[in-house]
């Protein structure tokens, strides 16, 4: 069965169905993270003392490196899509592979951050600061894992998809990119709020 308007825009919405679906999904994601940001503001405003990131033992250098890693992965993701649009399949493979690798680098750095916290007996149950820190970075980390899964699937199946319908593959990469850039966008706000303020 052929999925309607997978490549061409729907006559009513003006965009392919996949893009509309991904944006609706991202809108729900905004509300998910929005609820957590709202909770963080309330808890912080109501707290007698809220530690600065460094005071709580968070590493600004590691988080800065992770920010750079995610920003770079956003560029490689959009370059993967641009490569497909320019009919450069080899470059597409390279850029998407780099995106996945950078996502793994982010998680490895996060792993070191988490193990350092556990080593110092800082857990979600330690205090309100660590409860919000682990909840928000943990949920974000799960989204990074989700991005790795989606991008890996697209990379592994891209050969056949490229032969069958290059435009459809380009659209799929664009939609996966929208999700990945959103993950980057959330981190852009998490980084200063949790680590720098």
């Amino acid at each position, binding site marked *: 069965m052929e999925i309607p308007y997978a490549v061409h825009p729907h006559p009513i919405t003006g965009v392919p169905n996949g893009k509309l679906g991904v944006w609706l999904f991202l809108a729900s994601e905004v509300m998910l993270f929005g609820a957590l940001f709202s909770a963080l503001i309330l808890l912080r405003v109501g707290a007698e003392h809220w530690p600065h990131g460094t005071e709580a033992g968070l590493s600004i250098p590691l988080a800065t490196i992770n920010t750079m890693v995610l920003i770079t992965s956003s560029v490689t993701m959009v370059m993967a899509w641009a490569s497909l649009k320019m009919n450069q399949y080899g470059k597409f493979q390279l850029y998407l592979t780099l995106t996945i690798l950078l996502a793994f680098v982010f998680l490895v750095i996060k792993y070191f951050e988490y193990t350092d916290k556990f080593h110092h007996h800082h857990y979600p149950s330690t205090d309100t600061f660590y409860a919000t820190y682990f909840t928000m970075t943990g949920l974000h980390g799960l989204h990074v894992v989700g991005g790795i899964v989606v991008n890996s699937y697209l990379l592994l199946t891209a050969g056949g998809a490229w032969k069958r319908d290059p*435009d459809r593959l380009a659209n799929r990469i664009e939609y996966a990119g929208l999700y990945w850039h959103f993950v980057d966008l959330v981190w852009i*706000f998490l980084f200063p709020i949790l680590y720098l303020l």
Partner: protein
Amino acid sequence: MSGEGAEDIKKHVKVYLIVFAALAALTIVTVGISYLHLPTHWAILFALLVATVKGSLVACYFMHLISERKVIYWILLICVFFFAVLLWAPVVTSSM
């Protein structure tokens, strides 16, 4: 974005690289500001301001929102409204 040719995309690639440089520079600015040890309200203001600029760059250029269709803007407008309610309503009501 789906209807553009290879030449248009080449122009976009240059923009992506400029945005990348801007994002990297703004990240350094964010971290630099945090080491100035400004009063809390100024620190929050500057940090969120820089984060908003960075987020806007990602949304506008990497997510192509700068040249998107109306239906997507409507979805985001509704989303932004409820996001604002989510952020401000508890803060406003907590002081009642």
